[in-house]
């Protein structure tokens, strides 16, 4: 009789912390056949990672397995002793970690990381191997993950490699011992979209060639379409729904799955929303603005200018949602900070409403005009201050009398759909979406005309993202705000922005309305960027611009250097 490669029956896991017990996994059942690609999707805290840790046997000490069983290749994992389970790690299944930087010890070279894993696994299984033999095997695996020149990689320290290369090394680490099941925990989430798409291609290719099974853990439904045959949807520790991915995506049975799928902004097709283009006078004008940072090389080294923004000229009309897209390090944030008056331009001239600042002039932050909402609401709110204390700062600044503070705070919270009772809460008592609402309320408190949104939704789950975006849209209509929206999430920008500009290495390479840019991208980089976005359906995939292999490689290399 054949049995599935991995089978989980009614697994219940609970965590006890601070004298309370929380039921984290509730009757989770899951099956992976040999050679199958299975995706486990769910939002933050749904229990995806706990499931993978239960399989690997790396649950923290305060976790307790209440009932259930996990069978790998017909063997019951919970019946094994520690040594037997230990032996399975790396050889039967292995995991590709999420964060390519923190998974490496910065003081050791890459080769040391790989060799250590190999050495101890060999020792465990009683195989004698010389350093040279191990190196040969390591080189093989590194070539497998498409890293040319294994010697150079092995001699490098983790920080010397790009994010994409580190992620590849992590995959190599997982492949060292030819596991049969590969668990990928949000691979490439921390990377740029073009690099992420390369990583996913690589994983797919490896699974194909080596006949591996794959358990893909992710919250990105676009990724699921590319890398899974079957899908399990998880929520609050329960499997909500499962089935072949096509069935789940096209005909979701449960409301939760439907909501999850609808929350994803489409890139092409009927669902796409075109925002009205603002036909007003520009409120922000940039004329040939450059900004370079001085980088000292060495202790007595000369100061060299590193150009973050190069000769940028652009106009943002009042009432517009101006999207600034680009990958990390492209100069988006620097440009926004220059507009806000937090940084002075090295050359060029900036006009915001009636205020001008240019080359060599002392800049002051344009607090009355511009306010900012940061990417991560977890770090942009002071953990030691309540919501009302946080909101009182800008109110104090606009010289609102103390007696009117409370009324204004309540109306601010009302604008972002939070009840009055939240005034006395501390940030840790709020969810991610609620924190971001408070951050938006703080930005609105000083009555700015321009709001800079620095990836305001990238730290949030898709369903929460949808709410926050709807809120921002409503606020713009009610208050007549102008948004400068910085993001790398192009499918969101397609639907949210009325004008979009693509930045590459400090330059704006293309701009126009989203409809124009997406249907007929001119610059090869824009094409490569759009092509790399994970989308939800085949129809959308077909409408993506075609990119030649050459062009794709060109921009990958650029992004790496």
């Amino acid at each position, binding site marked *: 009789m054949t049995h599935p490669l991995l089978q989980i029956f009614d697994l219940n896991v609970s965590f006890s912390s*601070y*004298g*309370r017990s929380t039921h984290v996994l509730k009757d989770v059942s899951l099956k992976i056949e040999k050679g199958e690609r299975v995706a486990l999707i769910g*939002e933050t*805290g749904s229990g995806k990672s706990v499931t993978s840790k239960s399989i690997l046997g790396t649950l923290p000490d305060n976790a307790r397995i209440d009932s259930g069983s996990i069978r790998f290749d017909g063997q019951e994992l919970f019946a094994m002793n520690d040594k037997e389970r230990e032996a399975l790690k790396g050889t039967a299944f292995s995991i590709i970690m999420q964060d390519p930087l923190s998974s490496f010890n910065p003081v050791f070279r890459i080769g040391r990381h790989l060799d250590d894993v190999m050495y101890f696994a060999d020792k465990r299984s009683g195989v004698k191997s010389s350093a040279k033999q191990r190196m040969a095997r390591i080189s093989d695996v590194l070539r497998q993950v498409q890293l040319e020149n294994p010697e150079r990689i092995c001699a490098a320290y983790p920080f010397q490699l790009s994010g994409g290369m580190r992620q590849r090394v992590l995959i190599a680490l997982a492949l060292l011992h030819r596991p049969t099941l590969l668990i990928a925990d949000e691979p490439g989430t921390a990377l740029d979209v073009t690099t992420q798409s390369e990583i996913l291609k690589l994983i797919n290719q490896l699974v194909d060639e080596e006949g591996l099974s794959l358990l893909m853990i992710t919250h990105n439904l676009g990724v699921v379409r590319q890398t899974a045959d079957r899908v399990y949807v998880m*929520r609050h520790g329960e499997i909500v729904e499962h089935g072949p991915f096509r069935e789940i995506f096209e005909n979701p049975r449960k409301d*939760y799955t439907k*909501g*999850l799928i609808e*929350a994803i902004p489409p890139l092409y097709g009927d669902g796409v929303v075109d925002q009205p283009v603002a036909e007003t006078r520009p409120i922000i004008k940039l004329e040939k603005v450059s900004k370079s940072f001085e980088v000292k090389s060495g202790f007595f080294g000369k100061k060299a200018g590193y150009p973050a923004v190069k000769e940028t000229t652009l106009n943002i009309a009042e009432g517009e949602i101006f999207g600034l897209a680009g990958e990390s390090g492209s100069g988006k944030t620097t440009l926004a900070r220059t507009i*806000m008056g*937090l940084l002075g331009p090295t050359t060029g001239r900036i006009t915001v409403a009636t205020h001008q600042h240019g080359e060599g002039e002392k800049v002051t*932050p344009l*607090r009355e005009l511009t*306010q*900012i909402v*940061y990417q*991560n609401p977890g*770090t*942009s*709110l*002071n*953990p*030691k*201050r309540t919501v009302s*204390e946080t909101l009182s*700062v*800008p109110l*104090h*600044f*606009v010289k609102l009398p103390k007696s009117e503070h409370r009324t204004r705070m309540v109306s601010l919270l009302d604008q972002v759909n939070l009840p009055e009772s939240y005034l006395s809460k*501390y940030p*840790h*008592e709020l*969810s991610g*979406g*609620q924190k971001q609402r408070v*951050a938006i309320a*703080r930005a609105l*408190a*000083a009555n700015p005309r321009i709001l800079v949104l620095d990836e305001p939704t990238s730290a949030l*789950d898709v*369903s*929460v993202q949808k*709410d926050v975006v709807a809120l921002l849209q409503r606020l713009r209509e009610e208050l007549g705000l102008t948004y400068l929206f910085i993001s790398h999430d192009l499918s969101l920008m397609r639907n949210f922005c009325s004008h979009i500009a693509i930045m590459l290495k400090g330059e704006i390479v293309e701009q126009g309305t989203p409809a124009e840019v997406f249907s007929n991208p001119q610059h090869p980089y824009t094409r490569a960027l759009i092509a790399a976005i994970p989308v939800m359906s085949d129809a959308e995939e077909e409408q993506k611009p075609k990119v030649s292999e050459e062009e794709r490689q060109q921009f990958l290399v650029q992004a790496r250097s």
Partner: protein
Amino acid sequence: MSVIGSDEKVLSSRYMQWYRFSRNPAALIGAVIVLSVLLAALFAPYIVPHPDHAGAVVDFRSRHAAPDMAHWFGADKVGRDIFSRTIFGFRISLLLVFGVLGISVPLGATLGMLAGYFGGWTERIVSGLTNVMLAIPPLVMALAIGNVLEPNLVNAMFAITLIWWTWHARLVYRVSKSISAEDYIEAARMAGASNFHVLTREILPNCIAVISVKTTLDAAFVILFGATLSFLGLGVKPPIPDLGSMVADGRQFLPEKWWEVLAPGFAIFYATLGFNLLGDGLRDMFDVEA
């Protein structure tokens, strides 16, 4: 409409801190010891058998008396009850702790916070100054000051304070520097907050945990240091009872009259241990590095 509601119960940080603290026996013992020392010092005249022995009393009949019912820990060379004097000795030790830490902690924390937040020249001056001060051994400094000025309690306090603020400056500097880089500091500045507001309302609350842990641990060191100074004769003048000078006095009669150093010696150990345990417990409770 939200698809996912957040129905997760959020534990308040106070509850988590109390949970960690109350499940830590060492921390609880430390708290009890510190509390007992504070109470003993505060109510010394009411709890000791011979409150008058804290002063210049001479009772030659019980000179060097061994421990008995009248003198639980014996009597010293002029017949004063050692137990009574030890309890009174806590007063001087704690006075030193409050004096030294009451000045050096606010001073060090303020300078450290300014240096961490403003950077630039403020940072260079403060860190330069702390480096210089830390290069001077505290005992040498205290001896120098005690000899140049006059060897008394105030000067001993002054000497310790002069050195001590640097530790707090360094610690708070580190915390303040990392907090200054947080988004919420820039957000507060964008919202129009003044430097004073940022320092006192945004940064300081995030430093309180570290400061209180360090201060508690410091109390133990100050007690030890104060005892060392008075052992060397740089502290309190007789007849005021002080733990360090009592050990110094009793030392001449070792090993026959062992009880004369036992009580003050043990008292130093007891108070130091209490503050250390409490400090460690607070560190685990606040989950900070200090």
